[in-house]
Structures are given as structure tokens and as C-alpha cells.
């Protein structure tokens, strides 16, 4: 049986993946979209087709219509859409390993576009691993995908636009928001104002954010600004949250605590493919180095959307199309002049979407305590339950980069392979050794990037093709 081959394989069907697929297919590329979810949309437009069919988009807000349009265009295109396909390997040589509804298989592509989007930044505060604590984004996912709304009082804590939006979405759906605890310090607001003039050019988006805050106040959701020292308490599950504000310590009872300190690129696949990564000092995260077309340090691999740096859903569409245009050029479907001509409107739109970013990056910089936990008993690795104190000890034994520290502690050796602890481990090591994040580096991520059942691997479809023998006997 011969192997499955495509011109372009796109991983993920969020705004970047959908837009890229439509453009690539239109330009004549044999395009396959490998999507972990059951329907197109990604995180931002999750379940968008069903919501549209049911007339429920207004529950989320009008901006989500754009997602329905993109999903429709993807369905209408000649790109092959593969739902329920979990990619666990992308190789620099264009091989992709995935588990789909019919088992595991290898797919070969002349070029791979990673459109894996963003993930919530882990918030390792005391008690964050207790049952009854989850990410704001994860709660929003349940709401979007399954219409699940918490039936206990909810405390939302952290920073970023999403906390206001989700507070509103949950409140409108009938959930009690006991408090919105905002970690953004008052001093930050003054310094972020510098970026305001440029951000005003983004107009609508900025007004939208201001509108969310006003709506939170109008609905009477208790709001505390400039909180710090967040600590979740509870024995077997979250029972309450305490914090400092206005110079004193407060405590609230809570059945569910939702945490959020912004999103960071989901770079596990690009890391495992050895795409060069850079530390982004403005967004305080690692991201793969990409050029203006999304091309990476690996010749066959491109990245578009938030997976290459957080710019939001609208910018992700432009970036997806730019990467598709470049792929069509590289694979000889269009010439350079056509690529550049078609890229012009995308670049203009991208520039508009980028204007608000410096303000957001400055204003919603994550709280220092979530970047560098100081309480020695706080767990940093959920899979292996490794604490801050254990990690510090490992650093002093010689665990001076995440890969060495990993083996001293098992931190990052669990099923998530360091997705949740990677940033925290690196900042602890940087702090303990007095080095920069860039010098400390990242985990090496191994295949399978997502766990794969042994029997699924045993049934893997796809024959070895054109690989070096793995052994040299010179």
C-alpha cells in the first residue's frame, strides 16, 4: 500500500488554518487539514457551525460570525478536512504522524503549516492544581462546545481581556460570578497609556474592551483591581481564594476558581520539529522564529497564527493566507510577483490588527507571581507533582537547563511533556542561576507529542520511505 502524500498539510483548523487552507486549495495545492476537533473553528470559533445552525451565535457575540464564514469557505474548498485527527509528530522531512478516527497513520507533505494556535499560560499559584480550579479559557471551551455553565459561585482571577469577556458570557448564561479579581497593577495602567495613541487606531477593538469592563460594572459583578498574593485553599478541592488588595488580606468562598494570565503560543509541535525558538520579552513567552511569510528555521515547516506569537484571531487569518501564498510560490504554483501582489492586502490588514498589540502586551503582562512562583510547596508540574522547592534543589545539583532539571525531578516527563510546566521551570532556573530566559532555553519535546495508545501505534499505517537507515557502519 502506498503512503498518503499531499502538497500542504495544515495542522489545526482555527482562523489561521482555515484561511490558509482556503487560499492554498484555491491556488491549486493538494491540501489536507488535520484537526484535533470534530468540526472547524479552533479554540476561538469552537463548535461554530453547530452554533450557527442553532441560531446561537449571538450568545457569544457578533464577532463570532467571522468564524462561521471561514468554516463555510473551508467546507466549500477542495481542501480535505480531517476532523478528530490528533497530530503527535511533525518531522523536518515532511512526515506527520497522527491518530484519526480510523487509527494511526503517517502522512507525507511537501510542506507543513503548523496552525496550532495558543494555549492558556499556566498560573502556578498555591492551590492551582486542586479540583475546582481551571483556566478561564477551558471554562469558555466547555461553554462553547457543550453549553456547560457552572452551577456554583465562580471566582475569576487574573488579567487580560478574556476574563471580562468570559465573566460576561457566563453571567449572561445565568451563572453567579462571586468576584472578578484583576491582577493588573494600577501602576501598569499608567505606563500602558503610552501605547494608547497607536492603539486608538485599532478603534473598534479597543472600544470593545472598554465596553466589556463597563458591562461587568453594570451587571454588578464584584470587581477588585490590583490584587496580588492569590492563594487557593481547600483540602480535596477548591473551597476559597484569598488575596491582597488595598493593603489587607481578603478571603472569598468559591466553588469554582477560574484563572487566567493570558495566552502563549502552543509551540509543542514546532519545538519537537526543532524549529528555532526565541524568547519574546514583550509577551514573556517562547515562540518559534518566523519570517514575514511564516517560514521557520526548518525548510519544510511554516507556522501561522497565534502559534508563532500572540496577535489574535483576525491577524491569524492574514498570517494563514500569507503562509499559503508562500507555500504556493515555493511549490511552483504561482510566481513571486503574484505571491507578493496577493500578499499586499493581507499585510495592510495585518498592520491594522497589530496596532493594539503593544497596549495589550503592556497592560495585560502576566502577574510576576504567576511567572515565578516563590512559595516552596507550590506544584509546578501537574503530571509528576513536582514543587518549587524540588526544582530549586535540582538546579543546584546541576539541572541548569530544563532538560537536565527534568531528569533530576521528572518535571515535564508526564503525559503533557512540559506543556504546563515548561515556562515556569525555565523562569525558576533563570532566577536561580542569574541567567536570561534565552540562555536557559526550553525543553526538548519528543514524539509522540500527544500520548498514543500502544495498540494504536502497533496498527500504524504507513511504510518507511526515503529515510536514512539509522545506522552507519563505515
Amino acid at each position: 500500500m502506498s503512503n498518503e502524500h499531499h502538497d500542504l498539510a495544515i495542522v489545526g483548523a482555527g482562523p489561521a488554518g482555515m484561511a490558509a487552507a482556503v487560499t492554498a486549495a484555491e491556488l491549486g495545492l493538494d491540501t489536507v487539514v488535520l484537526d484535533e476537533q470534530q468540526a472547524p473553528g479552533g479554540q476561538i470559533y469552537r463548535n461554530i457551525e453547530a452554533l450557527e445552525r442553532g441560531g446561537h451565535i449571538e450568545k457569544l457575540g457578533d464577532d463570532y460570525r467571522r468564524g462561521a464564514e471561514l468554516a463555510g469557505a473551508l467546507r466549500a474548498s477542495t481542501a480535505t478536512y480531517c476532523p478528530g485527527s490528533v497530530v503527535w509528530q511533525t518531522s523536518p522531512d515532511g512526515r506527520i504522524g497522527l491518530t484519526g478516527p480510523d487509527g494511526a497513520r503517517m502522512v507525507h507533505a511537501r510542506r507543513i503549516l503548523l496552525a496550532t494556535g495558543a494555549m492558556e499560560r499556566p498560573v502556578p499559584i498555591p492551590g492551582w492544581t486542586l479540583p475546582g480550579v481551571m483556566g478561564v479559557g477551558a471554562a469558555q471551551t466547555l461553554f462553547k462546545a457543550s453549553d456547560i455553565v457552572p452551577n456554583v459561585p465562580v471566582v475569576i482571577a487574573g488579567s487580560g481581556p478574556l476574563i471580562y469577556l468570559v465573566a460576561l458570557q457566563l453571567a449572561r448564561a445565568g451563572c453567579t460570578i462571586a468576584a472578578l479579581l484583576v491582577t493588573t497593577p494600577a501602576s501598569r495602567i499608567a505606563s500602558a497609556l503610552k501605547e494608547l495613541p497607536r492603539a486608538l487606531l485599532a478603534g473598534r477593538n479597543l472600544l470593545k474592551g472598554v465596553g466589556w469592563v463597563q458591562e461587568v460594572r453594570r451587571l454588578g459583578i464584584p470587581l477588585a483591581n490590583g490584587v496580588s498574593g492569590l492563594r487557593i485553599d481547600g483540602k480535596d478541592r477548591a473551597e476559597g481564594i484569598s488575596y491582597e488588595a488595598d493593603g489587607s488580606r481578603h478571603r472569598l468562598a468559591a466553588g469554582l476558581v477560574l484563572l487566567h494570565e493570558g495566552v502563549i503560543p502552543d509551540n509543542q509541535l514546532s519545538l519537537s520539529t526543532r524549529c528555532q525558538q526565541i524568547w519574546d520579552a514583550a509577551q514573556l513567552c517562547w515562540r518559534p522564529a518566523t519570517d514575514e511569510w511564516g517560514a521557520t528555521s526548518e525548510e519544510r515547516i511554516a507556522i501561522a497564527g497565534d502559534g508563532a506569537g500572540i496577535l489574535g484571531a483576525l491577524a491569524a487569518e492574514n498570517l494563514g493566507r500569507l503562509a499559503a501564498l508562500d507555500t504556493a510560490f515555493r511549490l511552483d504554483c504561482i510566481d513571486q510577483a503574484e505571491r507578493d501582489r496577493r500578499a499586499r492586502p493581507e499585510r495592510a490588514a495585518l498592520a491594522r490588527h497589530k496596532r493594539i498589540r503593544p497596549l495589550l502586551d503592556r497592560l495585560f503582562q502576566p502577574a510576576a507571581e504567576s511567572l515565578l512562583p516563590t512559595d516552596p510547596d507550590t506544584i509546578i508540574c501537574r503530571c509528576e507533582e513536582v514543587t518549587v522547592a524540588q526544582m530549586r534543589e535540582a538546579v543546584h545539583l546541576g539541572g541548569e537547563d530544563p532538560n537536565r532539571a527534568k531528569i533530576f525531578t521528572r518535571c515535564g516527563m508526564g503525559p503533557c511533556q512540559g506543556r504546563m510546566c515548561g515556562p515556569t521551570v525555565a523562569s525558576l532556573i533563570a532566577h536561580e542561576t542569574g541567567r536570561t530566559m534565552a540562555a536557559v532555553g526550553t525543553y526538548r519535546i519528543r514524539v509522540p507529542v500527544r500520548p498514543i495508545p500502544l495498540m494504536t501505534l502497533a496498527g500504524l499505517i504507513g511504510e518507511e520511505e526515503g529515510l536514512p537507515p539509522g545506522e552507519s557502519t563505515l
Partner: protein
Amino acid sequence: MSITDTDAIVIGGGLHGTSTAMHLALKGMRPIVIEKNSVGRHASGVNAGGVRQLLRDPAEIPLSMAAMDRWLDLESLLGRYAAMCEFVGHIGQVAVAETEADMRKLEARAAEIRALGWNHEELVDRQELRRLLPAVADHCIGGLVSRRDGQATPYLTSQAFRLRAIELGVRFVEGVRVTGLEHGTRWRVLTTDSIFTSEILINCGGAWAWQTASLVGETLPRGYFAATMMVTGRMPSFVDPVVIGTGRQLSFKQTSTGTVVIGGGILGIADLTKETADPVAERMRVSAETCSILFPIMRRATIVRAWAGLEARMPDQIPVIGPSQTAPNMWHAFGFSGHGFQLSTIVGSLLADLIVDGRSPLPLDAFRPSRFSEAISGVG
């Protein structure tokens, strides 16, 4: 450029380089280990971790026996760092026979080493196999066991060796690459960082050792490979010994945390220049299937990670240990061909004896570097 003078320089901070430096320090020397990456970065840190006497090449058996004595008394060697290795001994390593043909093969092996005067490899019948491996599949009919064998955690072992060596006065220079070797009255080692000089030079460069040898005009085998391992999520405890296949390629063990490490002959993609080794899913498939056939409980396992390590492989599958054929006061110890982990407690010690006292207490003749050129001239 600064110059550092010492009495011995070891090139390569794998287990054998670190162990050699440690044993030279025990003899009063002040070795410096120069490592291009970090200590234990390749095969030493990422191998399967089996501490195995079973099915060794007869030339290795005396070394392997002595090495095992030391594993079973690690504290004498590593002091307070002994526990870091997570070594467990006396759990046994078992080669499982699935067919009569497998059993014949194991019987022949047992007879062969008995004839050489060894008795550590013991044939077991169906019943004893089940006592050793209660979870083994019904069709397995017997096996060969070495009862003293055990397992340890490779990366932690390489770090325990490093920390103990530092305690004894060894200096490690990591992230520094050797760019040239000159010999006048002493060795002059040129690196990407500075110059080091010494009386003695030891090449423990693993998969890259032939490159170091070529700096002094010595030609040694350049064979290398990428051995792939995969590990499962935590499973209930179901197997104590390390298990290897007989008719099929497999090596298999459960760690104290419950994860199962699967290896044994799966080749990854090896790149000596980029210094990378990547697992190949298409090649891991067979091992996954083999596991499920030998241990039906493995049908419930989930693979969470796979990795590969770069390791030298000699044409005759045994290491190179001994003096350089072209340069004075230079010694080699590399080419362990995928089974050097267990020998790491002894080879450095024998080499230190050879260097300082002029003789090794155990026979090393089979490992002499000159054996490859002899073979070639023999043909001619």
C-alpha cells in the same frame, strides 16, 4: 588564549569518560574532562538503563562480572551519590523463549558459556519463567536468566558519577569542543574555549571518538547508530526483571514509578553532525506489537514519549579499550555498541590501572584498538 596545565585530560563526558576521570582522581591525578555538550547528553544519559550480564560477548564477561560487584556496592564507588542512580540489583534479566527454536538457541548459549567456566546464565522452564514473570503471555515456554542483573536510571547515574568525580577533584569543562591535538613533550589540546595541556590524554568520545582519533592520524571504526526507546505512562506493577526477546528484538523493563521503558534494536535517525537522534514511528510499530504479544497487559499501555541516543557501534560489537596505535600517552575507551552502561563501573577503573600502573587486573586484549588494522592486513 589562556592555557590550563594538568596531568590528564579526558575527551568526552559520558559515563566512561567520567568514570575514567574519577578513577584517575582516586589515584591522585587531577583530570579535566572536556565535553562538547553537557555530561551524559547522549548514549550515557538516554540508554535503556539495563544493568545486564546476560548474553554478553564472552570477552566482556570478566569485566561484566567485576562491574556487577561494583554496582551491588555502589556506595563504595559513589559515596553519598550512590542512591541517585536508582539502581536495583538482583531483579534478574530474562531472555524469553516463545518457541522451541528460541529455546534451542538459549540452550546452546547456556552450554557455550558453561564450557567457558561461567554459570551466571541459567535456563528456566515454563513454570520458573512464570514465577519470574507472572504477566508473561501463555505461549512463552521458558527462558534464560541472569539473576544478579538489575536496572538503574541512566541520566541520574551519569550525574551521580559527575558529582562524585567533582568531589574527588575532577574538573568538568562543558560546552567546549576539541579542535586540535598536538603532542610535543606533553599533550596540547586546542578547544573552542582555551588551550589545555597534559601528560595523558584519554579519548572517550562515544559516537564521535573516531573523529578525535583522526586528529592524531589514527583510523578507527566510524560506526554509529541511534537506539530508540519509548516509555509508557504509569502502569500497575507487573514485572520486576528486565526482559529481552529471543526470536524477536525487544528489551523491556518497568521502572519504580510504574512506567515501562521499551527498547531493543529500534533504530532512529542518527545525525553525527547535527548531534541529533530522532525516533521513527514507522520503526517503533513492531516493538509496540511485540510488547503486546509477550505481555498482554501492555495492550492497555499508552506511549507518552520516545527518544533516541547516539552511540558508537564497532564491527565486532565490543568496545575499544587500550592505547592509541599512533600517539604516545593516549588511550581510548569507546565503541560500547549499545551495551556499555553496565560496564561503566569497571572500565574507567581498569583504564586508570593500565595508565598509572601499566597493567590492568582483568584481560583487555580483546578490546585492543589495533584489532581492526590487524584484520585488514590479515586479509591483504
